[in-house]
């Protein structure tokens, strides 16, 4: 994380905010201003490159969704994949079992201990998913 540039689809901080704001609905002690501040910090990180969602990215995402929807890839996933394609990024950090199944990517799942690392071409065994 310290040296590499990290590509961040604009949908990710929005999704994280959505999840944490839902937590706030149940746990009012969670300070939503702090959530907003944290997500603002992610966007301000010097080695983050935020990929905006524009009309071309939306069309690219729809094409990818058409290709992969039968593999369980969803709308947000397809936006992330389209962002990666735009910048020719081939490594993804994810805990999504459908994204882990895409063997044309180098995949890292940090939830596994040690982190699961799948090289390009290597198949993911969904039975290993936890």
């Amino acid at each position, binding site marked *: 994380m310290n040296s590499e540039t990290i590509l961040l689809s604009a949908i990710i901080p929005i999704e994280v905010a959505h999840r944490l704001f839902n937590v706030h609905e149940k746990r009012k002690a969670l300070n939503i201003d702090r959530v907003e501040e944290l997500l603002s910090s992610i966007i301000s990180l010097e080695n983050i490159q935020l990929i905006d969602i524009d009309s071309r990215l939306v069309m690219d995402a729809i094409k990818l969704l058409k290709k992969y929807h039968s593999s369980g890839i969803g709308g947000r996933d397809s936006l992330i994949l389209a962002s990666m394609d735009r910048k020719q990024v081939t490594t993804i950090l994810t805990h999504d079992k459908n994204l882990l199944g895409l063997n044309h990517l180098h995949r890292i799942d940090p939830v596994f201990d040690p*982190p699961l690392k799948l090289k390009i071409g290597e198949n993911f065994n969904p039975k290993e998913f936890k």
Partner: protein
Amino acid sequence: MNLKPGEKMVFKIENEKIVIVKALTPKEFIEKAKEFRKHLSEVTDEPLPPIKKIFE
């Protein structure tokens, strides 16, 4: 704003205005993330797993 060599700046929207601020370094961000985790752990019943080395 004084920037040292290697430091970057970013545009942010604050109070409906575009402002230029110094970009956070990964080290600064990790400190902020740790502070947030501490707050999050105060409002959840289950202990949070430690930050993985991969993120540091």
